[in-house]
Structure formats: structure tokens, C-alpha cells
């Protein structure tokens, strides 16, 4: 008999979905069964330790990073992106049309705005971080240009 459409056209989709699911699940289940039958599990604190290239795992892995690093990350980005774009621009500056220069100026001003904000906040001044009890409780907001 020639292949006709099944009674429910969605039946094929269901078959397809189930076989797709099986393709993923069956190997995993087989591997599980195989492991259980073939090898006994030998759990061990060293074996279960967090992988750190063979070094001893840090005693407390959920150490919070200081939120201040985010500020320095942003400021770094300002300088980084500027350098990245300004160097090639400087190379072809003589031949640039006025429209392009205006575009660059807008771009640089946008970045400068970020720098001005950081400056006004006093973030450009490197402050030695005082370790607090919990490490992450330092407030993000600083007072003026201290």
C-alpha cells in the first residue's frame, strides 16, 4: 500500500518527538545501568572535590567578590573601547568626511560621559579596600569626590 497520510497528522510529530527524546535518554539510562552492573561507585572526598587543576580546593568556594570590581571593570571598558577605536580612527583621520567625524565625536562623548560620571563620583581615586566582616557588604555609593 502506498504511504498515505495517517488519520491524525499530528501522530507523526508525536512519534518524532518521542524518538528524539529516546535518542537522548536511552544512552544515558544504558550508561547508568552499565555502570551499576560493571563498576562499583567509590566516592571519596578528594574525588568529589571541586576541580581546580589538581590544587587543593579552597575551603570556602562561595566567596563573594567585592562589588567594587564591577566599577573598575566599567571604567576599564571606557578606556579600552576608546583606545580600540581611536587608534584606527587616528590613522585615517585626514581623509574622513565631516559626517564620520561627527559620528566619532558622538561616540567619544558617550564614553566621556561615563568617565565624567566616574570622576564626579570619585571612583578614579584608588582606594585601598578595607576588609569588612562579610566581605561583600561595602556600599556601592560613595560620597562625592572624596
Amino acid at each position: 500500500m502506498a504511504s498515505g497520510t495517517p488519520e491524525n497528522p499530528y501522530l507523526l510529530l508525536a512519534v518524532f518527538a518521542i524518538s528524539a527524546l529516546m535518542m537522548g535518554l536511552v544512552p544515558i539510562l544504558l550508561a547508568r545501568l552499565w555502570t551499576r552492573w560493571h563498576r562499583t561507585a567509590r566516592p571519596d572526598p578528594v574525588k568529589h572535590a571541586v576541580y581546580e587543576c589538581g590544587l587543593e580546593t579552597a575551603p570556602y568556594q562561595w566567596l563573594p567578590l567585592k562589588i567594587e570590581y564591577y566599577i573598575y571593570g566599567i571604567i576599564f571598558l571606557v578606556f579600552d573601547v576608546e583606545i580600540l577605536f581611536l587608534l584606527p580612527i587616528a590613522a585615517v583621520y585626514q581623509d574622513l568626511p565631516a559626517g564620520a567625524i561627527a559620528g566619532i565625536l558622538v561616540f567619544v562623548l558617550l564614553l566621556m560621559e561615563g568617565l565624567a560620571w566616574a570622576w564626579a563620583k570619585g571612583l578614579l581615586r584608588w582606594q585601598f579596600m578595607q576588609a569588612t566582616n562579610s566581605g561583600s557588604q561595602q556600599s556601592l555609593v560613595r560620597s562625592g569626590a572624596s
Partner: protein
Amino acid sequence: MDEGLKSELQKAGIFTTTLSDLYNWGRSNSLWPLQFGLACCAIEMIATSMSRYDLARFGAEVFRPSPRQADLMIVSGTVTKKMAPQVVRLYKQMPSPKYVIAMGACAISGGPFKQGYNVLKGIDRFIPVDVHIPGCPPRPEALLHAIMTLQRKITQDTLGYDRRKEEEAELVASLPVPEHGPKDLSPSKHDSIWHAAPSRKVRT
């Protein structure tokens, strides 16, 4: 199965095998080495995995950056006492069944740095080594030969429960990772793994 019958059947186009053979064939041809190098031997190891020597022909080219996915540790180079705990820890973090190839004079005995205060005199003091390759450094062919030797060893493996093997794995799992003592690693070796040959004993 009888070998004669097997070859008779093969002539008729019927291939027979055992589940164990099939399993070992698959496993021996898909070794995943742990990706780490310790010294100059690592350069030879890299050369082995590249196109000229082509480790992929033996199915062992998939170097894994994590011990969780690796079943072969190639100790390629000088193991300093500073590095030994890390090597042992990585070995312990690999899932069983796992194999070790000690590559080069340093890894098997300390090599030219044997008299050095900071060099481990062979990684087999801490972890069981399946294949030792002499040479300084061994050529890629030697590493290929070691892989083939290991493959032959895996082919002899049994599929079911093996008491001797289980006990060995139990022993290895129970051994501690050495720590840096005031003068030497402590312990300086695992006696249950490393047996000094008479000629290797220290003369006073």
C-alpha cells in the same frame, strides 16, 4: 569460543564475538588522555597528537581538560615534589577504570634529576603505572608503542566483577594525597604501590 570454529565461521561470512571482547575493543580504541604536560616530554606528547604521528589513528587523540572525562593519564615529564600532590589528586579525580603511562626517564625514575632534592624519583611511588616508557625524551613512536601496549592490556580486561581489580581500586582510592612535609613529601611514597627492587635500594 573455539578459535577454529571462529575462523571457519568467518570464512562463511559470519563474525562472532563476545560481549567482553566488544566492550574491550571499544574501550581500548577510545582512550581519553588527560591534557596536561609537565616538562619536555609533553612536547613529544603534543607532537604525537599532531598530524605527523597522528595519535588519532589509535583513538586516543581526545585530550580532555578535566580529569572527570579522562581515563588515561600520561605523566609526561619531571614530577617535582611540589607538583606530585597535584598529579596524585588529578589521578584520584579520574573515574575508574583509569590507566597511567609514565613517559620518559623523569616520570619513571627521576631521570637526570634523580639526585635533585626536589624531584620525585618516579611517579610510581604514588600511583600505579601501567606502562613505563624510557627515554629522554621518548620519541613519539615510543608513546605510540606505549598506547598500543596499554590497548593490549585493556583487551585482556574482564567484563564482570573482578575481585582482584576491585581490591586494587579500593586500595588506590584509600591512599592519601601526599602533603609537603618539612623535608620531603609525607608520606614519601605509598609502600603498597611502590616496591623497591633490590638494586634500587639505597646503598649506605
